[in-house]
């Protein structure tokens, strides 16, 4: 499957006595969806923050597209090709839906210091942003304030923003969170498409979606990866069943 696009090697992060990440290694190969699952408090959020550059690991390294990004901050990692979505939709509520996506395009084009031309008539921003909105059927909401659209639409906007970044890696934090069955199904279809553009590290609680989408699954418990493999391998792993899946299915 080729060289990993995202390669996390032995990262550890300790907060006081709590080992939030304990020698975690993970990789993401071109075209795949690698799901990261685990119970609440397993350290998924801490791991995401370290990958996104919001937290620095105490040990270990993170490589993105062959480049060591361990020392880079969130801005530099975004520029290196990482797009992350947030568990709780994190959009600019005063902006319109379109402006939220335009900002993502602007970040990709790296031309922010333009002071005179109106952004809303800048084709280089508007056209890619509208194209991304059309892919998720959100174009008809383009001129609405992001704070006024529904929860499901905001989740879709969150994904559109990540798509508009045209990243090398998607880091998606519970994209299905709070969505109804229809929304989850649409999101599943979208992610299935998206993996062709860039591999996805998917943190998700919706097991149906994970089993449908994931090429590989890693299970994080108490900061450690306790199992990693294909869907069937992980599903049938007795340790995983005891630590995680069993509880939920019971």
């Amino acid at each position, binding site marked *: 499957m080729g060289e990993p696009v995202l390669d996390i090697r032995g990262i550890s992060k300790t907060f006081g006595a709590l080992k939030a990440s304990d020698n975690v290694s993970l990789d993401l190969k071109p075209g795949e969806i690698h799901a990261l699952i685990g119970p609440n408090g397993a350290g998924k959020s801490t791991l995401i923050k370290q990958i996104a550059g*919001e937290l620095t690991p105490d040990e270990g390294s993170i490589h993105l597209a062959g480049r060591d990004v361990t020392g880079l901050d969130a801005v530099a990692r*975004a520029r290196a090709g990482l797009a992350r979505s*947030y568990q709780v939709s994190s959009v*600019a509520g*005063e*902006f319109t839906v379109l*402006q939220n996506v335009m900002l993502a395009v602007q*970040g990709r084009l790296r031309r922010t210091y333009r002071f005179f031309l109106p*952004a809303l008539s800048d084709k280089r921003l508007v056209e890619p942003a509208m194209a991304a909105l059309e892919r998720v059927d959100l174009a008809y909401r383009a001129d609405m304030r992001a704070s006024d659209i529904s929860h499901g639409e905001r989740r879709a906007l969150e994904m559109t923003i990540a798509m508009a970044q045209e990243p090398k890696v998607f880091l998606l934090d519970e994209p299905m969170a709070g969505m109804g069955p229809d929304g989850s199904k649409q999101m599943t279809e979208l992610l299935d498409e998206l993996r062709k553009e860039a591999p996805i590290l998917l943190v998700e609680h919706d097991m149906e979606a994970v089993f449908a989408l994931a090429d590989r699954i890693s299970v994080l418990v108490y900061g450690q990866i306790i199992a990693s493999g294909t869907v069937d391998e992980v599903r049938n792993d007795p340790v995983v069943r005891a630590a995680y899946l069993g509880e939920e299915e019971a």
Partner: protein
Amino acid sequence: MNREIILNAVIGFGILAVAFYANSSGETFTITLATKAAILALAGAGLNIALGHGGLVSLGHAAFFGIGGYAAGILATHAMYYEPVLTWPFEVEGTQSMPIIWLVAIAASGLVALVIGALSLRTTGVFFIMITLAFAQMLYYFAISWPAYGGEDGLSLGLRNGFPGLNTLDPLTFFLICYGLLMAVLGLSALLARSRFGLALNGARQNAERLKSLGINPQRVLLTAFVLSGMVTGLSGALYADLNRFVSPEMMSWHTSGEIMVFVILGGVGRLFGPLAGAALYIVLEHSLGGVSEYWQFMLGGLLLLVVLFARGGLVGLFAGERRHG
């Protein structure tokens, strides 16, 4: 046309009409008040870039106002006494030419804003307010203890500085200079608010973390806005010195910072003509209520309370509805 544009036109032409009417009826003092409103509105327009778009609650903008004022005062007094401002490492003469003074005021306040901003933007919220306040107070006490330029007594400019081809001693002419600069700055602010930079700046205010994850450094965007903001307020300080023909450390005191913020909040935070509406109202209140009671600021406080509680968009928001971007 939307209501905000109509309201802006009313405010903009209104103050212009007041000045012309006062001129034709010989009420020089009223022209001076209109000029003061335009200059203070310019100071507010500066703060509005940082506060209205970037969400940076700076309680230190008096520093830039004062630096602009002292730039005018120092250059003008040196020119008056034919003493160079600097003799080493190279000689710098004073000047009484407004355009040069403006450029010096803008450059000096921009430079100071860069230093203050770079240090203050490491903090947010209340700490940002306190650190900008602290920097301004440092400069205030520095001005008080600097005897070369009048110390606590301030510095008198003598004649008003000149503008090539214009008689700046004519009150209406000086008003039009200030008004023209205000309109030019408001025009540029309107462009800035709609530009890519404006998009990033308003984005940084709403969600700095998101901006980072898009590969845009919010700190740098905010620092740029803070510097532009300081430059505009610095320019207004130079005009204020020329209006009064006097500069004093009082221009840098925290009262002044508070007043500049009051203009913006009264008029409407982030609204293009908010600072002008706020400054004009402030001056009207000062001179109508000020005649009734010397405790007029008590009533101003009450009004400010009402605005903050019931009209968050200030005067402009009250008449033109909620703020929109782009």
